């Protein structure tokens, strides 16, 4: 009787575990990344934290810091296993796409530099997607670019940081002093 209860508990646990946990067919070391993925992301194994299955496809999970946001794209540096960071990677996305930041859903247009994001790299194809806010949301995958993005040309002009107010105050004081001098001479002349 007791044995059958134990078996039942083990059976139920196994079933529940099978439902809730993704089936890990590979880990970062053994995942069969395609040549195209390795060509565009040579250090993928160093930044990969785990491999998950989603919609029947394997994805390497990569985490990192948001470095820059742009039109329909974010730029990230991924955490390497040795504590350093990868080169900057561009990930295409949509402004209204929602990701999870500190456990809260945030749309891409409201992201800020320094926030920690998670992305998925497809093991079989050179595509990358930001982790959606909800696990049930569809992945929005885009082709990975090979190199760090080129920075935009600078259009900034040196600002004018000299206030005219000290000159205004000095001129005002000089005029008052001049007026006082005139008053002094006028009164002396009249007396």
């Amino acid at each position, binding site marked *: 009787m007791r044995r059958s209860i134990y078996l039942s508990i083990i059976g139920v646990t196994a079933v529940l575990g099978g439902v809730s946990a993704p089936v890990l067919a590979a880990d970062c070391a053994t995942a069969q990344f395609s040549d195209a993925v390795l060509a565009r992301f040579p250090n993928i194994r160093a930044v990969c934290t785990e491999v998950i299955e989603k919609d029947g496809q394997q994805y390497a999970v990569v985490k990192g810091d948001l470095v820059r946001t742009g039109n329909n794209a974010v730029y990230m540096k991924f955490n390497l296993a040795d504590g350093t960071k990868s080169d*900057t990677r561009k990930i295409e996305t949509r402004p209204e796409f929602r990701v999870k930041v500190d456990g809260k859903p945030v749309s891409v247009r409201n992201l800020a530099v320094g926030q920690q994001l998670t992305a998925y790299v497809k093991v079989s194809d050179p595509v990358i997607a930001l982790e959606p806010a909800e696990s049930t949301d569809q992945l929005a995958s885009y082709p990975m670019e090979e190199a760090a993005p080129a920075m935009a040309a600078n259009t900034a002009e040196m600002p004018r940081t000299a206030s005219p107010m000290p000159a205004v105050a000095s001129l005002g004081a000089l005029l008052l002093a001049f007026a006082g001098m005139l008053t002094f001479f006028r009164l002396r002349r009249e007396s």
Partner: protein
Amino acid sequence: MSHSTHHPSNGTRGFARVLRWSEVAAYVAGALLCSLFALAQADSALGSTNAIEDFAASLNPPDQTLWAASRVRDYQAAHLAPVKAVAVLTIPSLKLEVPVFEHDDEISLNRGAGFVAGMGTPDTGGNVGIAGHRDGFFRVLKDIKVGDVIDVRTRIKMHRYRVTSIDIVDKDDKRLLADTDEPGVTLVTCYPFYYLGNAPQRFIVAATYVWPSDS
């Protein structure tokens, strides 16, 4: 017995009249200019304080679910200032706290600092330019040191930077305003700090981003 009196000539009377009018004009103009300066100083002090308070309030807007519609409209109208701070810059080592406005126009710089047009912003990344008057809020930059911390609070998050270099460049030298791969902030003000008129140089403080994951 002759009695002589001194009658000033027409020329002397005219000169005295000119002097008298000059005296009055100088008093009026001097008082106006000094009043303008005093008004600007008051606007700088009050505008800065109000901008920081408004910014802080905007981070935690009150719960308006029970408010009347007219009260909500009044509240929103009261916060529609023509010049609103979009961030607050803090340098703890210099005890500097100043609102940062979207543009670096004269009104904004009188009340605080302003983002330099054509450069990045703290939230979007790149090289963020922040300008301030050397005879106002940014005069304390004369005492800044490499390694000092610069905090910029935006509506989204707090960004921390650490000073990496301090340079004095020609006023037309824009190289330090160039965009960067790494996020950073560049503070710009005129140099020398004590100078009447348009200063010939710029005092540039460059700082790089301190990643939350590294700190």
